């Protein structure tokens, strides 16, 4: 009991006197000049802790069953995975930064988009480190917009590309013979099949991505929207098409558009029970897994619209206070290897696409990628590549969230 009490006193005392943060900015970057051999040597016999979102059994198994044993065998690294929301991870790092804590507990995190922007702006990341990774320099394009910008934020070597995904719609082939080709056809289909379609509300990552497709479509010049930094003028100009489209379809949505699923999971459940005939998602291969587990019907297929499908890259990064930066870099380097990327592409694990450049690979490695069958529900690489659209500035995500309620939901 005494001990317990003294903890409280200590808490108060210490926090009171250390309020003035020593902004010592000890962002020492000890590994930038270290050779790769030296880094790998340092990494041997260490533990690397990766914190990442843990809600997908396929992803978890990939890390636990495929990656971890190989890191142990090949590099003598013990990989520990901890399930944690990216939002909470960054919150933790942010508080540690405030408290000026230099020895953290996380070595690798999985980020992109807004999270990366926040992390970078608040100096929560270690780097740059990307150029030091041999697998990155050997097998990935060095100058590539998809790696150099993450939702409009320059990455500057603070994160390494781990995978890429593209937005697709999923539908039940038994209910829909011919999926719509463009937004107009989709609208017609919705009005002919009232109650069979809805989208997650834009606070959800996937719902927001769905709306961004409409925003792109509404823009006078899609390229400008993508390449220019966020501007309110551009947004509201492109937005008017989006809002009127959404208002048009609203009465024919599931539950007459009075309620929208709060998350993609909610929409998926509706789809799996046959309440709606389409779902969607920011990963072109996600249906494989769901079909295999018996959650989605086997007749599930995917499609993209003519106006294109947004894709993005997701990355691995190292927190500023990682206690084992050498281990983190070694692990990330391994995760970027052709071997690890092929395994990640297997539909039985994760099915996540690779950002690797196939033409930089050896013949044998390339074969491994090309011969892999991603499953019936996944579109061919040709179709996916042709419809690929990059992400615009992350602020559009916020802008949509802020305005959607006023434009679509309220005053009804």
């Amino acid at each position, binding site marked *: 009991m005494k001990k317990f009490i003294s903890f409280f006193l200590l808490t108060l005392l210490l926090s009171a006197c250390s309020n003035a943060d020593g902004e010592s900015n000890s962002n020492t970057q000890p590994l930038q000049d270290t050779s790769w051999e030296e880094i790998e040597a340092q990494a041997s016999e260490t533990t690397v802790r990766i914190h990442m979102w843990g809600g997908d059994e396929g992803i978890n198994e990939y890390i636990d069953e495929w990656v971890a044993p190989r890191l142990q065998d090949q590099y003598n690294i013990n990989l520990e995975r901890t399930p944690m929301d990216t939002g909470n991870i960054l919150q933790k790092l942010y508080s540690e930064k405030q408290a000026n*804590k230099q020895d953290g507990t996380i070595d690798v995190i999985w980020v992109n988009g807004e999270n990366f922007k926040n992390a970078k702006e608040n100096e929560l990341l270690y780097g740059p480190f990307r150029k030091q990774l041999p697998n990155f320099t050997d097998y990935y394009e060095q100058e590539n917009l998809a790696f150099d910008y993450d939702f409009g934020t320059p990455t500057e070597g603070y994160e390494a590309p781990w995978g890429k995904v593209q937005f697709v719609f999923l539908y039940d082939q038994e209910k829909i013979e011919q999926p719509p080709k463009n937004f107009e056809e989709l609208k017609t289909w919705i009005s002919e099949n009232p109650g069979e379609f809805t989208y997650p509300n834009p606070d959800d990552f996937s719902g927001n991505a769905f709306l961004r497709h409409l925003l792109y479509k509404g823009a006078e010049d899609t390229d400008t929207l993508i390449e220019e930094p966020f501007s309110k003028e551009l947004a509201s100009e492109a937005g008017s098409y989006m809002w009127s489209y959404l208002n048009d379809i609203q009465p024919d949505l599931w539950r007459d558009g009075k309620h929208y699923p709060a998350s993609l999971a909610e929409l998926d459940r509706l789809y799996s029970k046959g309440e709606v005939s389409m779902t969607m998602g920011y990963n072109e291969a996600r249906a494989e897994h769901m079909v295999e587990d018996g959650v989605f019907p086997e007749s599930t297929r995917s499609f993209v619209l003519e106006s294109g499908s947004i894709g993005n890259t997701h990355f691995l990064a190292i927190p500023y206070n990682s206690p084992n930066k050498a281990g983190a870099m070694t692990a990330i380097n391994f995760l970027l290897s052709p071997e690890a990327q092929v395994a990640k592409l297997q539909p039985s694990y994760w099915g996540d696409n690779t950002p690797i450049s196939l033409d930089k690979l050896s013949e044998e490695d390339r074969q491994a990628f090309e011969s892999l069958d991603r499953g019936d529900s996944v579109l061919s690489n040709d179709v996916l590549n042709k419809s690929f659209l990059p992400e615009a500035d992350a602020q559009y995500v916020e802008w949509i969230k802020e305005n959607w309620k006023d434009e679509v939901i309220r005053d009804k």
Partner: protein
Amino acid sequence: MDRLSKQKKIQFWALTLLFFILPVVFLFLKSVVLNFGFGRSSGIDFTLRGWETLFSESQLIQATLVSLGIGALVVFLNLSVGLLAGKALAFYSFKGKALIEALFLLPLIVPLLAIAMGIHVAMIRIGLSDTWIGVVLIHLVPTVPYSIKMLQSGYASIGTGLLQQAKVLGTNRWHRFFSVELPLLMPSIRSTVFLIFVISLSQYVITAIIGGGNVVTLAMIYFPFLDSAESTVLAAFSAWFALLPILFYLSVELLLSLLPYQNPWRTRL
């Protein structure tokens, strides 16, 4: 009179069955049934996938043990603080009591997230973040107010009479506590133990923030699965969640029935 009580008994069981027991049974069913016969397939598809996935989760057992341990400690600290404060509030009258009582509700009134944010920075500075001690401490915030309230009303319902009698009879303070107070308080203590454990078990956000992923409790593994559309997995997990308090409750019962003195757990007050 007899008939009346029998009728009441039936009513009672019908009520609890309908509102409390059936939903739980349903949850367990749901964890082994894929989709309730819905047009496209006739009949019901049974599957063990949910439970398989659950047990293939590499950290499940460890997280369960961590949750149990943290819960036990939180319960113990709660009882210590709650018994003392509850007694003071039930039996003594002093200046500022209303204020104190309102203050004890403070942790319930302020959103936990706000509290945890502020404390986190302080805990990092003194090295309590990322440790199970830090997690136990933060779990006290949403629990202690309950124990104080419940034990206070427990004391209040005993009244001062019996305790004064014991005092007059000259027993010493500890003896009085163990042989008079504790047995009389048992119903309240039991409920407190039970409630506090469940609250501690369900804390996700504050555990994640203060534990920083170093302390992996069951909630930490469960929560990400709310994003998953696989209802069998989620149902199996939910059921597992409910088994834990039962396990804990049973072990506490067992522990206490082993105590030598007069077996207060059996007395019906």
